[in-house]
């Protein structure tokens, strides 16, 4: 009896079944989320810190930005040195929030999603990897990567 209750409890937390999507379908246009997730404008300086920080986005694990002060940047994902010239803020937002919406097989984790996940560690269950504000700050940092002359 106790086991059954425990098993049910485990399933609730591990299967992620009760979690619904953080982003409504009608916020998505093509491969873009035009509307910012928070009202305040993003802070590119904080965004850069989150981009590098091991305990935050740690985007440099897989991506590189030319001139950025971070050793051993990864090359698993695309180079983002000039990503602001290539993608709009809305496109950047969707790619960070949940790129799997438009590219289901992508390696890119969904940083603002809690639904349809599997075997999530108890301590991280029910929470997205980054907060809405974190994502806006990173979008603000990346949308400014338009020119090699830009101060990274």
């Amino acid at each position: 009896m106790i086991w059954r209750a425990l098993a049910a409890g485990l399933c609730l937390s591990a299967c992620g079944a009760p979690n619904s999507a953080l982003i409504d379908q009608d916020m998505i246009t093509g491969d873009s989320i035009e509307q910012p997730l928070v009202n305040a404008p993003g802070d590119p300086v904080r965004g850069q810190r989150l981009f590098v920080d091991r305990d935050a986005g740690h985007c440099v694990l897989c991506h590189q930005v030319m001139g950025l002060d971070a050793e051993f940047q990864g090359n698993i994902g695309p180079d983002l040195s000039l990503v602001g010239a290539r993608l709009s803020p809305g496109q950047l937002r969707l790619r960070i929030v949940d790129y799997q919406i438009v590219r289901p097989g992508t390696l890119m984790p969904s940083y603002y999603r809690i639904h349809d996940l599997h075997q999530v560690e108890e301590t991280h269950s029910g929470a997205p990897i980054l907060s809405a504000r974190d994502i806006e700050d990173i979008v603000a940092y990346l949308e400014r990567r338009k020119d090699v002359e830009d101060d990274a």
Partner: protein
Amino acid sequence: MNRIVGCVSLATIAACSAPPQERAHDRLSPDEIVSGSVFLTAETRALQADDFANPGFLWVDRGEALFSEAPQTGPACVSCHADGLAGVAATYPAYDSDTDTVLNIEGRINQCRAKHQGASSLDYESDELLSLTAYIANQSRGAPVSVDTSGSARAVYEEGARYFRTRRGQFNLSCQQCHTENWGKRLRGDTLSQGHGNGFPAYRLEWQSMGSLHRRLRDCDMGVRAEPLPYGDPLYIAVELYLAARADGLEVESPAVRR
């Protein structure tokens, strides 16, 4: 493969900046299979190759002593296995008809203890079990990994393959996405390996200790923020069998040294 080998031969992995092509296929082809030791620095490879300096041999030596030591309840391992167990570990995990399960070396040791020695099970990651496992695995060093996935082992193999290919954790990544589709690329200071188990039990610099393959699998699961399975879990043994079949022909390296 070509690019990786090119880099390694020059011992300049870090300087090799262009990523290998993305691989869409879901399995490694036999000609691209390489051991995790290929992705190590020259210093770490040299440490592994030197039996006197390789810290894993502390466990191998301890295992050799334990192998000859009779527990109070029964005979020593060596009294049945006087000729040693050369080549055996290269065929594990293997199906065991007595228990109708697939056993890894750790499981086989504990089964032997119960059946022939009247002794209690050794805990996973205990110094004793790691030592005995390392001693037995080391007797297959250089032998090609070759496991049987037919018959009763088939369903277990399939289960392991499914675990390997299933996305999990808050990062929602599968083993497959990193270790089959993107091996050789740079993850900050590290290079993604192909995820083979041929070096385990292995001495990991990060652990400053010897550890089992299940400890490594738990680290990987926690790395994608997935709830790790318990040590010795049948599902991890299934993954172990899948990994061994996937590494078919690769030489056993235990005790390997890994990052």
